[in-house]
């Protein structure tokens, strides 16, 4: 990252927030507002200890696998809906219904439906992320310029050429938006799913910290998740910038 791109205002805001927390921790019991050094020690323990790190990595793997599969199925479904109105007429109400069900309800349903913990968590991530990918892909497909479609058709491309040369590049920006939205949502949903019945994962560790009334540890685990989401957002942003490097950059 170049010096120019460092967000000094953002860093300052973060430092102010930390200073306020530390100030409050001095005048309140430590089980309510633990001092930063206590959280820092627990965070270091999580990252440096093989066993705890495995919990963090398991949760991240669950989120990423769930998201990648939701992305593949959801995007394909969205494109088919865009191409075939009859399929859209059938699938859209189902997806809208699924999207309307609260994530917590899906957790309860999944606990009853699936005994296997991994399957349960995977199902919850899939069912909550898939509609968003589908709708984004659908909207994006429908928004492809008629002018550009006609231009391509003059050359008589095959379906795969049409997809590679026009459709895929047209929908990429919206798919990145869907990824960014779903990343945060799926992280929250995965943790809730892990709270119920999982014996490995950040959700399970948060549940343990709660039962031990260990707020520094709960906050340290929370920070692990926040760092994961931020790192993933940066990775997505880099990937997006490299794929969409053709876009004009606004000067203001």
């Amino acid at each position: 990252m170049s010096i120019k791109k460092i967000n000094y205002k953002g860093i300052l805001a973060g430092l102010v927030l930390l200073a306020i927390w530390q100030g409050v921790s001095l005048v309140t019991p430590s089980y309510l507002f633990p001092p930063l050094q206590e959280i820092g020690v627990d965070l270091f323990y999580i990252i440096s200890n093989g066993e705890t790190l495995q919990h963090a990595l398991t949760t991240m793997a669950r989120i990423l696998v769930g998201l990648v599969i939701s992305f593949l199925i959801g995007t394909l479904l969205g494109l088919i809906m865009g191409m075939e109105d009859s399929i859209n007429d059938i699938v859209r109400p189902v997806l809208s219904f699924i999207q309307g069900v609260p994530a917590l309800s899906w957790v309860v349903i999944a606990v009853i439906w699936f005994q296997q913990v991994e399957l349960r968590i995977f199902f919850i991530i899939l069912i909550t992320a898939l509609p968003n990918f589908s709708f984004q892909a659908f909207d994006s497909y429908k928004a492809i310029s008629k002018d550009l479609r006609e231009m391509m058709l003059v050359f008589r491309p095959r379906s795969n050429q049409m997809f590679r040369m026009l459709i895929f590049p047209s929908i990429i920006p919206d798919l990145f938006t869907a990824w960014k939205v779903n990343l945060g949502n799926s992280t929250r949903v995965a943790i809730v799913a892990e709270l119920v019945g999982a014996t490995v994962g950040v959700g399970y560790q948060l549940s343990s910290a709660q039962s031990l009334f260990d707020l520094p540890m709960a906050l340290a685990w929370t920070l692990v998740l926040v760092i994961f989401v931020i790192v993933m957002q940066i990775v997505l942003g880099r990937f997006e910038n490299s794929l969409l490097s053709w876009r004009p950059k606004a000067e203001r």
Partner: protein
Amino acid sequence: MTKDAIVFKNVCKEFSPGDFGVRDLDFQIKEGEMVAIVGKTGCGKSTAFNLLLGLTKPTSGQVKVDGLDPYQSFQEFKGKLGMVFQNDRLLPWRTALENAAIGLEVNGLKEKERNKIAMEWLERLGLSGWEDKFPHELSGGMKQRVSIARAFSVDPKIILCDESFSALDELTAIKLRKEFVHLIRENNKTGVFITHSIGEAIEMADRVLVYKKPGHVAKEITVPSEIDVKKMEELRKNILNGMDIA
């Protein structure tokens, strides 16, 4: 005897009952001919082009391009048609060179080969050094040049042009028009272009088809190869008469 490149025989396109895009459209265009279609806005010129390109199906009548129905034999027209649209219609994620090579890529040419051909066309159109630029980095005239290169690079038999110079400033339009006519003649293509400008039609075409609502040819005017001011004015009046304007 020169073959017919394009034949429209009693062609109708009815979008909804009573709403005709074209009606009883009848005309022939010979191979190597340069024909202008003029007419008021909404008189069915673009519908005729869509029928010619095989993008829309005629309700009745027959469209033949190079002896085939462009709608029924859609895939047979790979590489046979080139089109320069009113706006450039460049893919924004592709460079000028990649845009010019779109048709060649569809035709299955390897990257090296298609880039060589596309680059030759860009050079002929004065875009040497601009091949790696994206459309947003090019001026309106440059973008339209890329779209001309894109149309010519597949070496089509027929080139269509839909008011392609109307959005450009007058000086650029005059220059591009001349280049376009030169390329059509030099490469022995059949050219059909839609224009609002009577001057442009007389300047570029061998023959002018005057369109009237609902999409039929009201008048056909042959443009002589040598035109003086008096003859020019006569032709202009004749065309305007066909459009019921004069």
